[in-house]
């Protein structure tokens, strides 16, 4: 059984600034990281590998330097790492991206092993659309289970999965047949730290690159040409100064209680 994890190289957004003139991200000198939600997806795949002995393939669409992200996946224990990289893939929106990723998953299914699960982070921290995972599920006609914070039950022989979804203020337990696409939240697990041996091996490993010659996709459905959305403007919204609640000096316990109430009301405290 093959588990495919979709990961993305993103700029460390806490360090990103927006150029006020061009309204684009200033990416110079900003380090790239693995999209944090994707690290939880990868971790879950690796845990399933430890438990069931399935094979894990990490795939990523991006420029050639996204290889580093895939090497991190190899260092953590992924069996296959495939970079989907081609100039014609560039400039893609979520629709075009999901077309490429879905095609790669189809190819893995045909050539490596039967795909049981596709795991994605709930969204990326650069685009924050949360559309690519569901897009892949639609293209592949897989069941989609979004915002998963726990895999309650998984049976590869009966081809069934039961998960807990973290929704606003509640949890939902749902069951679906396999193959399924899951998008995951941070509460799902704690990503592991790589062993040095594995890092060294990953550094020497060759990441397989698939371009459009490999995938043979209609150029009208990928990249800029296949993207019905375009970015007209990016800007940081002005911050409005918040209200001051309670008196932290005179009554710290009361202020803390107010804060907790506020956070609970806004569903910002994980329960």
């Amino acid at each position, binding site marked *: 059984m093959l588990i495919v994890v979709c990961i993305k190289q993103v700029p*460390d957004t*806490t*360090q990103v600034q927006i150029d006020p003139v061009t309204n684009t991200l200033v990416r110079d000198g900003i*380090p790239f*990281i693995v999209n944090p939600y994707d690290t939880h997806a990868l971790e879950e795949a690796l845990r399933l590998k430890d438990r069931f002995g399935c094979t894990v393939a990490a795939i990523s669409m991006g420029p050639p330097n996204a290889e580093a992200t895939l090497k991190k996946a190899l260092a953590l224990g992924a069996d296959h790492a495939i970079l989907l990289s081609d100039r014609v893939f560039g400039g893609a929106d979520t629709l075009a991206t999901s077309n490429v990723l879905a095609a790669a998953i189809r190819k893995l299914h045909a050539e490596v092993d039967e795909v049981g699960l596709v795991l994605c982070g709930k969204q990326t921290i650069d685009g924050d659309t949360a559309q690519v995972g569901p897009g892949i599920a639609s293209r592949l006609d897989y069941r989609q289970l979004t915002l998963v914070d726990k895999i309650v039950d998984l049976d590869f022989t009966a081809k069934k999965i039961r998960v807990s979804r973290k929704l606003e203020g509640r949890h939902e337990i749902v069951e679906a047949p396999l193959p399924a696409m899951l998008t995951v939240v941070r509460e799902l697990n*704690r990503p*592991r*730290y*790589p*062993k*040095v*041996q594995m*890092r*060294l*091996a990953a550094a*020497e490993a060759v990441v397989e690159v698939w371009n459009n010659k490999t995938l043979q996709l209609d150029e009208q459905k990928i990249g800029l040409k296949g993207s019905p959305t375009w970015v007209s403007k990016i800007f940081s919204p002005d911050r409005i100064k918040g209200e001051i609640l309670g008196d932290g000096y005179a009554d710290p316990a009361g202020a803390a209680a107010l804060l907790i109430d506020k956070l609970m009301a806004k569903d910002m405290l994980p329960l």
Partner: protein
Amino acid sequence: MTPNPFIFAPLLLASLAIFAWGCWKRLSLISLGQPEERFDNIGTRVGDMLRYAFGQKRVLAKPFGFNHFIIFWSFLILMIANTEFILNGLFPHTIKLVRLPFELYVPLAFMIDIASLLALTAVTVAALRRVFAPPYPEARTLDAFFILGMIATLMLASFTLNASDLAAYMFHSGADPVSFLATARKIMPVSALLAGQLPPLQLETIHAAAWWAHAIALLTFICYLPISKHMHILTAIPNCFLHRLEKPNTQPREVFTVGNRFGVGSVDRYSWKDLLDSFTCTECGRCQNVCPASITGKPLNPRAVIHDIKVNLLENGAALKKGAAPQTPLIGEAGEGSVSAESIWACTTCGACMEACPVLIEHMPKIIQLRRHLVETEVEFPEELLNLFENMEGRSNPWGIAPSERTKWCSQLDVKPFDRDTTEYLFYVGCAGSFDSRNKHVSVAMAQLLDKAGISWGTLGKDEKCCGDSVRRLGNEYVFDKMAKENVATFIERGVKKVITQCPHCFTTLKNDYRQYGLELEVIHHSQLLRNLVQDGRLVLDKTTEEMGVTVFHDSCYLGRHNDVYDAPRAVIEAATGVAPAEMERNRNNAFCCGAGGGRMWMEEHVGERINLTRVSEALEQKPDTICVACPYCMTMFEDGLKDVKADNVKVRDVAEVMAEALFR
């Protein structure tokens, strides 16, 4: 008469065989260790051996050490007497000291007699101490009492033997007992005193009994030595010769190529010298009595770590020699012979154990090696370290703050970038000085002081990266290696030669650790620089500050014990306040850690009393208004500790802040 070579010779041969077998069985295990160079600078090594082994320098650092000094030197002197005894046993009546020229014999006999008395007294005192006031509770071992008892038996037998010899000579020669004994007392005071008390008719029986008692005690001792902690009399002297000449706080590098192993997960991964250390431990317990972890009730006990390495080696030695897998795990909860992960993570790497060890055992590097195995091979470490490791690797600072914020501390100041042509010093601010809100004040004070003294300095600004101290001490050598290589490349590229640091951790890493990467920097801690600037008249204090009140100074482990900087920070405080700071009970090389070293800064402290609270209470005994520190970690630990004991009327100030107070207020 008594010595019968036909009985004694086979017994001696058998004992020597058992001794040799015992030594071989243990010492041959040392060859299982990894290679390590310990034979450089022979001259220094011989000097250190004379100082530490024969001069007993460290032993004498504690009052009770004098007792051991007596035993050690008596032992050396009595080697002459024992050699005579053995030769006499093999060839009776042929080899006797008494046949030496009178001028040589008299002082020798006198020395032996007195040494025996001193040794007897010393072992009695040692036994009493062990009963009534042992160095640590578990020190009352059968092993210890047996050894002391054997030494006492040897001394008593030897007195009786000499006394019966004297008495026999007196009766056979027909000399006047009173004048004979009076003369004899000048040569062998104790034996002569005893000779007068022996019954003349049983002299031969007494002589025979004493001779055989001595013989049996001596031979038993020879057989027992290699399997007891008394083995140290064989290993301590070479161990002092072989000690690491550089301060052992700088751990050796690892080579990161596929197929290598990292850290120490089984005992044969230690170096041969590490294994020799384990056979050298005398179980004196001085390390555990100064260890901040042991004292505050953590599971770590440095003596036990060394002991467990020895036990592990003995238990797994046979298997390892055959190339088989070890049975007893080196890291684990298996009891004796295994070091628990919890104790491995409790170490603050303060180096107090190594400073206290009389035979120069290197405890701390062994613990780091175990950490390396846990981090790099097993990936098993306290969960709070996961964030630290990722922050250090991803953003090159412990908190994971965006590197673009590294220069925020100096946003109100005119700070020049370091340039090899226009600035002399690089001020390497460090992560705490750049990001920690309290320690930013120290950076600002330093910047003002440097400008005031007219120093030509600059910073690397946003290009400054973390030195990697914490990850190295935590055993994440892989990440340290990456960080070190990156920093070394930057320093070389930017032409950095002289560096000022305000953090002892940056100080030691840049000064000592980066030397392993071929980078020789002139690194100066800000306390040293400020002291020099005052001495050279570049910082002129026309008044002292009274703002600080009574000050007490806390030594940072990485400045003091690890780099021998003790006077500079005290001189700065004295220059600024007009008074030398008060001293805590444990100060300078005996100072007690704040609890933050060795990466403990980033870990929770759940077990036992908190180390920083212990140190805060000690500081408060001096009734200070200000606790002075020279390290950002110590700053944090003291500020937190003072809040916890509700003593935040006491201030914590870095030496630079004290100096700035005197100059600018």
